Each structure stands twice: as C-alpha cells, then as structure tokens.
C-alpha cells in the first residue's frame, strides 16, 4: 500500500517535471524571459505536484498545467511584483499554444534551455543550480542546501543569472558544430555537478540530496535522448549509472563507510552496471574519446572486479594518465596517485601525491589528506600518517567517512 503510493507519487513527480521543464523551455525560448516563464507556471506546477499523485497523471499534462496556470491568473494571489511578466507569458500561451497544443505535443526546447543555462556568459557555479531550477522546477532552498550555500544567496544568484540571460540576449539555440564540443562540456559539467552533490549522500539519509543524484541521471538521460550521437553525453550517463549502481554497497549494515576496493560487489545493481557498460560501448564506436568516457571506463574497470575477482590497477592508472592529459584536476591527480600506489607501490604513489603538494587548493581538500594518510600508513610512517589522518578527519563532513578515518588512525598506534 505504502509502496503503491510511493510509486504513484514518483510517477507524478516525473511527469510534472517533464511537463514543467518543457513548458518553461518553450516559453523562455520565445521571450528569453526565464523568470517570467517560471512565474507563470509556478502555482500550476505546485498544484500538479500536490494533485497528480492522488488523481493520476492527466492524459495531456502540459495542457493541464496551462489550463491551471490560466485559471490562477485571475487570482489575487498572483498579483505579485513579478506577475506582470507572468501575465505576458500566459497571453503567449493562450494565443500560440491553443492552436497546436491540443493535438500535438509541445516541441521540446529543453536542450536549448540547458545550453542557455550553461552559457559562458553565466557564471560557472550557478549553471548547475540554474538547470535544476528551470528544467526540473527545484526551489532555491533545496538547491542551496545541496550546494552548501545559504538559501538567500542562492536565490539572489539565480535571479541575477536569469536577468543576465535576458539582458545579454543569450540565444536559445543548440550551438553550431564548431563550438558544440566546448559548449556541450559546460552542459554536461552542470549535470554532473548536480549528480555529484547527490552522490555525496550515499546513505540517502537526506532525501533532497539523494534525489539530486537521481535528477542528475534523469537529466543525463534527457540529454542522451536529445543528442543520441554525442559520445560524451553517453559517457556521462554511463559514468553516473556506474556510480549509482554501487549505492547500496557504499555503507555496511552498521552504516559505516566502505571504500570502493572493499565493497561487496554482489550488492552492486547489475542492471545499472549492464546499462552503463552498453552506453560506454556505444560511445566507443563513435571514435572520439573524452573526459566522461574515460571516467566511465575507470568505473567499468572497477566494476570488472565482479567478473575477475581482482582490480586491474595498471589499466586504471593508464586511464587516469589519459584523463590527466585532457582534463587535469586535483581530483584526477589524486586518484591517479592512488592507482599508481596500487600498481607500483606506496612509495611511487606518495611521490605522485607530493608533486601536487604546492597546490594551495589542496590544503582544505579532504581526499588529498586521506590518500596521503593511507599511503604513509602503509609505509609505516606513523607520526606523518597520524597527522595526515587528523587533517582528513577535520576536513570531512560525512560522519560515516569521519568514523572510517578515525578507525584507520586508531589502528596506526597498534
């Protein structure tokens, strides 16, 4: 019973998001006024989220949303500061949409909207929040929590970004071939950022965060369906599915953190792994390698442990070498060092880590200290390992990982 309700609610939410995002995109593409489009639909979307789980999803969800939006227009509640823009959009809906919309589906402009949200003129840190809000209808407070920003600040950033879209006249179009690669990267990065924020709550104790991982995958699927021939979109979806497949294995029965190499692979979701492998295989046939395909390939190498019983660290190291050369970042460099340590020994791994030591960004970067600590411990350098563990513990915000590191640190003294 409970479960049936859950399923109905989830189905209704997905349908509401589909329709909402489509309508926002459709309206905004015609006016460049994202805020106005959202404003016109806000109440209708809220009504759908409240109603559809009980009544079922209507046959023409977009038409339903529009009808409600128009009805609500006359409500006194709607006379807010922004309702002027909202009214303009509703007029547009009434005039243009009625003719086509009753029989046909709304043209899907969400891809264009995503390219707008991830446009170079939009500050990179707000791109992912902007996509979550405009395409999926997340409110600023939810997004703010996920990205560790105060709700008021996030609200301001989103408002500013939307007025920038209008004022700088960012075009609602999919970029031409020549610039597509770079622009698509920005879109994929924004989607991956949403997924990664959700991924950081492995136990799923915070529903908001876990949902963000699901929404990231949902956006990944959307982009794949709209651009099925771009290998990197396939690569990103593959990467996210590999990661998601391991969710259940990331914590043990007591809720404690389990590192990837020690995970019980029978807990990995085999259907998701298979889908991820298939996507990666399809991407590989297109003959253009990229960051997300490489990262997915690393995941694939880890997943191969379920077949071979061992992890091929040499292959993983080579993949990280390739990643470092096309998309170097501290994260990649640290993972590469860990792979080197596994393939060639802790001394080599530590050397690869210490090369990074000059980078100030690493001072507050937990994975760096955790990796150092692990390798120092392996070499029996107890005082240095203890110090590095302390640093990692102090920088960690997930209590389960903190406990895991504390456990490792405690073992050092014995």
């Amino acid at each position: 019973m409970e479960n049936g309700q859950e399923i109905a609610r989830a189905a209704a939410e997905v349908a509401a998001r589909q329709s909402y995002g489509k309508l926002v995109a459709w309206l905004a593409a015609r006016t460049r006024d994202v805020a106005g489009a959202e404003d016109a639909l806000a109440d209708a979307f809220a009504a759908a989220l409240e109603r559809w789980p009980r009544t079922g999803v209507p046959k023409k969800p977009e038409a339903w949303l529009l009808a409600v939006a128009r009805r609500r227009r006359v409500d006194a509640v709607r006379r807010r500061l922004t309702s002027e823009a909202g009214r303009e959009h509703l007029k547009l809906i009434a005039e243009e949409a009625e003719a086509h919309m009753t029989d046909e589906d709304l043209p899907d402009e969400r891809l264009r909207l995503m390219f707008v949200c991830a446009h170079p003129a939009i500050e990179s840190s707000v791109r992912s929040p902007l996509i979550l809000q405009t395409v999926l209808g997340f409110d600023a407070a939810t997004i703010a929590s996920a990205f560790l920003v105060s709700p008021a600040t996030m609200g301001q950033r989103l408002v500013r970004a939307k007025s920038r879209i209008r004022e700088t006249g960012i075009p609602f179009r999919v970029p031409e071939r020549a610039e597509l690669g770079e622009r698509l990267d920005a879109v994929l990065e924004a989607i991956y950022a949403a997924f990664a924020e959700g991924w950081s709550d492995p136990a799923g104790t915070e529903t908001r965060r876990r949902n963000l991982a699901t929404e990231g995958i949902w956006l990944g699927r959307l982009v794949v369906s709209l651009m099925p021939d771009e290998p990197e979109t396939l690569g990103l979806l593959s990467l996210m599915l590999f990661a998601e497949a391991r969710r259940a294995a990331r914590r043990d029965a007591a809720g404690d953190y389990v590192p990837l190499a020690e995970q019980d692979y029978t807990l990995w979701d085999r259907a998701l792994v298979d889908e991820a492998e298939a996507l990666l295989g399809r991407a590989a046939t297109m003959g253009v390698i990229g960051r997300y395909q490489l990262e997915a390939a690393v995941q694939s190498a880890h997943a191969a442990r379920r077949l071979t019983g061992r992890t091929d660290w040499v292959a993983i190291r080579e993949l990280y070498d390739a990643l470092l050369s096309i998309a170097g970042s501290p994260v990649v460099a640290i993972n590469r060092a860990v792979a080197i340590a596994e393939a060639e020994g802790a001394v080599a791994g530590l050397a690869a880590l210490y090369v990074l030591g000059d980078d100030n960004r690493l001072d507050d970067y937990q994975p760096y200290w955790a990796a150092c600590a692990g390798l120092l411990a392996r070499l029996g350098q107890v005082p240095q390992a203890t110090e590095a563990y302390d640093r990692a513990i102090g920088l960690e915000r997930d209590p389960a990982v903190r406990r895991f590191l504390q456990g490792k640190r405690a073992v050092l003294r014995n």
Partner: protein
Amino acid sequence: MRYMLLIYVNEAAMAAAPTDKTYEISAAYGAYTEALKKSGAWLAGDRLKPTQAATSVRMANGKTNVLDGPYADTKEQLAGFYMIEAEDADAAIAWAARCPAASAGTVELRPIWEQTM
C-alpha cells in the same frame, strides 16, 4: 570576514553517550580544530560547560536578577563556539558543514559585525 560558529547540541544526549562515542566525538573536534588552524582559518574557539553551570543575569527597574540556568530553554543548547576567518559566506558554510556538530546538532553561523572606522 570573521564568522562565529555557534554550536548547538543536545546536552542530555551527549552526556548519555557511551564512553567510546564520547572519545570519538572529542577526537573529531580535535581534528577539526587542527584542520582550521592548519589552513589559517582558526581565530578562537572553546567548549562551554553544560547549561547547568550557566547563570543568567538581568537588570530590571534598577534591580539585578540572577538566575540559575541558561537564557533560553531550548531543545539543543549552546555548547561551544569557533571564531573563524573565511573569505565569504560560502567558505564559512563549508567550514560549518565540516564541524562535527553539523551532523549531531546545529551550527549557527553568524558574521561578526565589524567596526568600519
């Protein structure tokens, strides 16, 4: 900018925690304090004695009123503080999220009202 991190936790639950848990928590605070210091963010910070040691003082109509106990009776009690230097609110929130209290209670983040003279 300077920020105050006010740590609120459930005192009774903390007092009732088993010894190894208490040890784990104080070790986590130790590591957190070290991390703050090493990255140059730490300005001050201390743990406060429980609210049963608190005294509230108030003057009304020329008469001083001294009461046992904290100013406000709340579900979680002020248990300690850090004062940190952070570039902006985002950086301060990142530090607050790492504080062990964030997963056991609440960390209230307040910018210091700087005197601009």
